[in-house]
């Protein structure tokens, strides 16, 4: 699946010729169509907006009046954010935020670099068993994580890795590999063989072909996988909960938030601020790299 943006040359034409959807829309024309679109848009933004407003209101105000009263009686404070990040008498989310970063970065880089090697082998080298191995790895994408967790935990404990970042780095790398290989392989296949042939004639081996010819061309595919994997790992709860325990030594911010929601489910001043501390990173990435994000998301839709 690809969501190629329409080439810019055809944009002018499209503006004049209506699409099928545009014609279908005319039935519900203007007032009703606009109203329906606005209702959906409002339903989809108000819940987030309400919690965002709350995160800046004083604790007492959040607990006694609805966030909509903010507009008649606006009082803004940063206390909730201070409280949720502070490790002394708050929720100490700062340490968990650091853990999320420490977990996520290697969990993106490791599978990406290993998958580059594997995808290159599958795309450009002939060797016995190539097709069957590729198919097998493709099929592994659908294995639900749940099936692997208990035996993996046992393996980690036996290897003495329990309660270290390694359990999570390795797990996410393993779970990310099939998708990364599939995505990068498909992209590498699209590169004209002539380009590689020319480099080979010039005496380049596999290593220099990979670095000098392929890698620069692969940037969009690497970005798509990188962003998908980053958001997947950053937003993950199941893997972290299974391997990291609940303490602030290893557990990421999603675990801290989920626990806070379970133990203090009326502490809305902490929950609201905490939720936005965790949301800010993926949403920033989303806003900056929307194009790649969509591509990665579409490609990875059957994962996990």
């Amino acid at each position, binding site marked *: 699946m690809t969501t190629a943006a329409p080439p810019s040359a055809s944009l002018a034409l499209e503006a004049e010729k209506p699409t099928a959807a545009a014609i279908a829309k005319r039935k519900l024309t203007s007032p009703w169509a606009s109203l329906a*679109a606005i209702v959906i848009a409002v339903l989809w933004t108000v819940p987030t907006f309400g919690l965002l407003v709350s995160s800046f209101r004083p604790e007492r105000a959040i607990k006694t009046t609805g966030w909509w009263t903010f507009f008649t009686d606006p009082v803004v404070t940063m206390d909730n954010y201070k409280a949720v990040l502070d490790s002394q008498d708050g929720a100490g989310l700062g340490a968990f935020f650091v853990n999320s970063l420490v977990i996520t970065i290697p969990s993106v880089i490791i599978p990406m*670099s290993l998958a580059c090697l594997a995808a290159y082998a599958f795309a450009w*080298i002939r060797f016995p068993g190539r097709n069957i191995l590729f198919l097998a790895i493709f099929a592994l994408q659908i294995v*639900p994580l749940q*099936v692997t967790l208990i035996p993996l935990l046992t393996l980690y404990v036996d290897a003495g890795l329990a309660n270290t*970042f390694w359990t999570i780095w*390795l797990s996410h790398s393993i779970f990310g*590999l099939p998708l990364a290989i599939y995505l990068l392989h498909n992209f590498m296949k699209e590169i004209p063989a002539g380009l590689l042939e020319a480099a080979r004639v010039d005496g380049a081996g596999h290593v220099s072909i990979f670095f000098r010819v392929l890698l620069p061309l692969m940037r969009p595919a690497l970005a798509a996988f990188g962003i998908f994997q980053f958001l997947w790992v950053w937003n993950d709860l199941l893997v972290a909960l299974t391997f990291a325990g609940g303490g602030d030594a290893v557990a990421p911010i999603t675990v801290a938030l989920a626990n806070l929601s379970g133990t203090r489910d009326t502490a809305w001043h902490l929950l609201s601020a905490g939720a936005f501390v965790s949301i800010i990173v993926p949403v920033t990435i989303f806003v900056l790299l929307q194009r790649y994000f969509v591509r990665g998301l579409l490609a990875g839709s059957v994962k996990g």
Partner: protein
Amino acid sequence: MFDTADNTAEKFTQMFAAILLFAAVVGIILFIAGRFGGRRGDRIVAYSYLAPTLLMLLVGLVYPGIRTIYESFFDAAGDLFVGLDNYKTIFTDKDQLTVLTNTAVWVLLTPFVATAIGLLYAILVDKARMESFAKALIFMPMAISFVGASIIWKFVYAYRPDQANVKQIGLLNQIVVWLGGTPQTWLIDWPVNTLLLIVVMIWIQAGFAMTVLSAAIKAIPEDIIEAARLDGVGPWGMFRFVTLPAIRPAVVVVLTTIGIGTLKVFDIVRTMTGGQYDTSVIANEFYSQSFRSDNQGLGSALAVLLFVLVIPIVAYNIRHIRQSESL
């Protein structure tokens, strides 16, 4: 470097050490590969490029998968062979039947409602002013974690006792009060609580449906539309006989993809109710049985059931992805 780190600096040091270690592994493989040339060398290069990947997948996915299937035939502690007893429990125990019912409701509702809303919105904002901004609003929840989304909605459903001087802080209950009703404890009563949890999943997935379907709609060839228009096909007919058939493969992909995601939903249930009040689903029950109740056998059986349920949907999905690849 394989210990537990104590402070921030140590954590980052450990992180860089891990990245360096993997960079070194890749470097060594490239170095070995660089020494070989010719046909036979090609094979050595290929297998050495694949070695780390195959090792990790065998140890981390294939072995654990087989091991879990094996464990699902043993008792809670994993010592005593019990045959199909764990599976029998899933299909006969009262609590487990609730889990199955809930999972069925989730999987039947979420994909269709999310896809319908996504498709409607894609059509409504197509060619509208500020189309990409309008789409970003609906798509944004995809970037938010399930945990974050759960907290956002838990606040919408928040309940405070129905007394004279107590005001509601949750939007849903406030709307009920404005309409003259009495506030409810939304997350306590089945089946309303499960339906309200499903709303969260629909809220997250509609953006995905909208994005894929919008791309499919824009890819419908101009001449087909033009021809239908010259034939005098009306707006509804245009949707029914032109748009819908053209985007059918994409619709199927979206439905099945959301279906698979819904089958494995865990974070929402755990964050919002912890699986209490009869809201548990298979993926959540797997976690509770495996790591809370220490019933490894039943947990494994639930994981295997999840796997078995995913397979037909994935098979169907892959067939349609092949068909829609040209989109």
